């Protein structure tokens, strides 16, 4: 029996259609029967409904509320304890998320000749500014540091950091620290929380905070606006410990606390001339 070209094409076309249709129906049937048999659905992921959300997180540092050494210490300690920030001792290897800086270092170019002695010697509390236009993010070759689209936090993904330190060179605020050595041995007894505040209650401390990771040798770290606390509905640790000296809220929401403070009082930011648009404001 011979077959001509016309017949061949007809048979080929029909069988292709049959095959495709059969495949998709059998797939559908198989799937629905599987799901019906086990009552299963595809796993999905959602953010914690308790999470605090904002368009752009910002902070106001009210320097008038920092009077004594203790006022600074409790804020810095709260952050450094809860994030397992090591105390190395050598200033060249120092790791810091929030720290004190003199006026002339924090606001270079703004120091006037006859600045009041009070301001001149007032240590300013500085941290990562979570810039709107962050230079660290721009230079990171692995996207280990990135700006969250949802709330403007400049995040660190420690899993991706290769320790090239471009971001440290890029950051004009010195907000980033490099782990020159394994930080674990330096998260010691001194890093235990000396007092039991609301956010540590019920947690057992062996060596630092056991519910937060440490870092390893060769990665860069910095303040993350406590993204891990925001995600479960808590304000950042420093804000909680400061008892009103640090004000935290949504910069895009005109009714937020930060916006109310900013509209009522004169505020300034670090190195505004660089165009990074910091999210941390200072009032005196």
């Amino acid at each position, binding site marked *: 029996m011979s077959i001509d070209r016309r017949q061949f094409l007809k048979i080929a076309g029909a069988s292709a259609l049959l095959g495709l249709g059969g495949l998709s129906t059998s797939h559908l049937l198989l799937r629905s029967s599987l799901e019906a048999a086990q009552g299963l*659905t595809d796993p999905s*992921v959602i*953010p*914690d409904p308790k999470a605090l959300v904002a368009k752009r997180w910002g902070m106001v540092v009210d320097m008038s509320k920092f009077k004594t050494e203790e006022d600074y210490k409790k804020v810095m300690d709260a952050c450094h304890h809860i994030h397992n920030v090591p105390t190395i001792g050598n200033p060249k290897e120092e790791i810091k998320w929030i720290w004190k800086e003199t006026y002339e270092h924090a606001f270079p170019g703004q120091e006037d000749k006859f600045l009041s002695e009070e301001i001149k010697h007032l240590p300013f509390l500085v941290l990562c500014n979570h810039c709107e236009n962050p230079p660290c993010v721009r230079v990171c070759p692995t996207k280990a540091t990135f700006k969250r689209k949802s709330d403007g936090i400049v*995040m660190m993904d*420690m899993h991706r950091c290769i320790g090239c330190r471009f971001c440290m060179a890029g950051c004009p605020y010195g907000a980033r620290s490099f782990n020159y050595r394994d930080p674990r041995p330096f998260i010691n007894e001194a890093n235990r929380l000396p007092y039991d505040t609301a956010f540590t209650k019920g947690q057992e401390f062996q060596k630092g905070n*056991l519910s*937060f990771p440490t870092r390893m040798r060769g990665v860069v770290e910095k303040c993350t606006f406590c993204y891990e606390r925001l*995600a479960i509905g808590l304000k950042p640790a420093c804000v909680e410990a400061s008892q009103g000296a640090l004000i935290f809220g949504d910069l895009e929401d005109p009714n937020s606390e930060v916006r109310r403070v900013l509209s009522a009082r004169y505020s300034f930011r670090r190195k505004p001339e660089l165009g990074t648009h910091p999210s941390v404001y200072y009032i005196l």
Partner: protein
Amino acid sequence: MYDGWKVIIGIIIFIGIATFPFLYDIGKASVPPPEPKIDTPEIQKMVEKKCVESKSFMKTEHMVMLNDWRDLVVRDGNRLYIATNGKEYAMSLQNTCMKCHSNKKKFCDECHNYVAVKPYCWDCHIEPKEDET
């Protein structure tokens, strides 16, 4: 064939060296397969002893799952995992996985040592404290 003996001796020596590891192992007891333990206090307390997903899935896919969780949490800010059975879990190695599997040495290391893989989770994530027994 020129230098036939030398060539043959060379081949014999080569075969000897190449098969040495296999011959050396003949008759020796093989390394026993790993037996990860799940008898932790937290798991004993559970009424229905079930992980986030089925045992077979976890056995073969946990590394993929942990990588997915890592990216979902750190990069996308999604923290809750709704499993195929509808239950919700916080996606956290340190606070969810290790809360039940607090026996890292007998659970994680048992297999990882057997297959000679060294996951770098514990460079940063804090492993649960275990009794030195």
